[in-house]
């Protein structure tokens, strides 16, 4: 912690005292959640200042119907599933991609959408399906490879579209009215793509402060201080403390590509339900690359595990420690809910960085878990 960071912490404490009530801000990015823990910033915040982890982990918000669709595709012997590693262990109705791979399904972990397309090029006799998961940071990569596959007529490549848009989810959370929020800490690298001005509807419609911040401790502290300054002054503005990377208009090339390859559609979010225009689907011109259409997949319904509070956790209505499964039936080694599966899930972050005392009546010593695989 540098001197300037110490000064920022002092200012944050002073502003919180000045506000004189409990203040709740939501970080809507799983990477922010992890960085707040890992940097130690979270532990230095005053108790009256609560940072809530919102629906910003793409694995956590992927609806059950899409997980099950991926598992169904994995049973097709013609298909190779290409996925980011985070999706491997998400449980669905018939297991997980990891368990299906152990049983013989062909599931390849890729580090880039480009790797998935390369896999299709090198396996022309087979079908490669890329699980397209993530917010706007990751979505342009999918748009780029779909456009490339179209240009080069790569006929054995398709995508299972699960990409989400962050701003409609923020608006839905505020519209729902159940999450009492004083402001949003907006994700730096999503904002590199969509631009800081994308949050204007949140500020304009709901009079809630939005501050775009990066991921280093100083950025986190600057962002939180700016939110507190607004709350203390009764303001609701859009601010950007990460202008070195984030412009008001975002990445024009990425936005243009997404406009060409994608269209907005209503999308199902785990626990939040269907949110209007909150997802990306392939535009009609590229619809032949849609795995759901190509393989005739019927998307099922969404059912969460009984007792699992992941839905409440990603809305900021509960903390992981409130869940009866947390750190008992649900651990990173044996995850029940998606917030424990993903390294950026709130439950996984709590498991890794924060210890909660056992709940009354359940007592006993905490069972020692093997170290987190991530």
């Amino acid at each position: 912690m540098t001197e300037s960071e110490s000064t920022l912490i002092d200012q944050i404490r002073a502003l919180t005292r000045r506000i004189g009530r409990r203040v709740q801000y939501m970080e809507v990015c799983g990477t922010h959640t992890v960085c707040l823990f890992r940097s130690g910033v979270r532990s230095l915040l005053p108790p009256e200042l609560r940072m809530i982890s919102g629906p910003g982990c793409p694995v956590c918000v992927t609806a059950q119907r899409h997980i099950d669709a991926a598992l169904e595709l994995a049973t097709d012997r013609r298909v190779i599933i290409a996925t980011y590693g985070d999706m491997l262990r998400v449980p669905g109705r018939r297991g997980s991609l990891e368990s299906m791979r152990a049983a013989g399904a062909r599931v390849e972990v890729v580090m880039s959408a480009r790797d998935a397309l390369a896999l299709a090029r090198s396996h022309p006799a087979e079908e490669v399906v890329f699980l397209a998961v993530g917010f706007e940071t990751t979505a342009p990569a999918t748009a780029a490879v779909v456009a490339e596959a179209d240009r080069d007529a790569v006929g054995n490549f398709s995508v299972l579209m699960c990409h989400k848009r962050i701003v409609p989810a923020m608006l839905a959370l505020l519209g729902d009215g159940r999450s009492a929020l004083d402001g949003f800490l907006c994700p730096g690298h999503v904002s590199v793509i969509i631009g800081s001005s994308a949050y204007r509807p949140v500020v304009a419609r709901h009079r809630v402060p939005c501050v775009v911040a990066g991921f280093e401790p100083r950025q986190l502290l600057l962002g939180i201080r700016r939110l507190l300054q607004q709350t203390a002054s009764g303001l609701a503005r859009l601010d950007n403390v990460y202008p070195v990377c984030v412009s008001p208009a975002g990445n024009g090339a990425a936005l243009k590509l997404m406009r060409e390859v994608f269209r907005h559609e209503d999308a199902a979010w785990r626990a939040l339900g269907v949110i209007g225009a909150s997802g990306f689907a392939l535009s009609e011109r590229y619809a032949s690359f849609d795995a759901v259409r190509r393989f005739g997949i019927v998307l099922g319904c969404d059912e969460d595990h009984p007792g699992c509070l992941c839905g409440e956790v990603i809305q900021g209505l509960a903390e992981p420690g409130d869940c009866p499964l947390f750190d008992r039936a649900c651990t990173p080694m044996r995850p029940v809910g998606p917030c424990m599966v993903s390294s950026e899930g709130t439950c996984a972050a709590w498991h890794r960085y924060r210890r909660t005392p056992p709940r009354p009546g359940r007592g006993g010593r905490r069972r020692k878990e093997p170290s987190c695989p991530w």
Partner: protein
Amino acid sequence: MMCLAVPGKLIECHEDLATVDLQGNRLRISRVLVPDARPGDWVLVHAGFGIARIEEQDALETWSYLQSAGEAPIFEDGAMNGEPAGPREHSP
């Protein structure tokens, strides 16, 4: 991490592809999202794609933090890597 991008220095470009140096590791990435980036520029790299040009000073500050934190997250779970571009032969 899913939404984290890290700075890399562009070493060479060939059409839509580029080789970047990430603190000694060379990766091949796409520059289709940063078409104006040229060798010598710094870009944020996410999932095998350059997503923004940034100033060198800001890039170095980010790397300084990543190294002081004891973990350069680019290799943590592979979620934002590009493909290796062969061994490093000389300093950028």
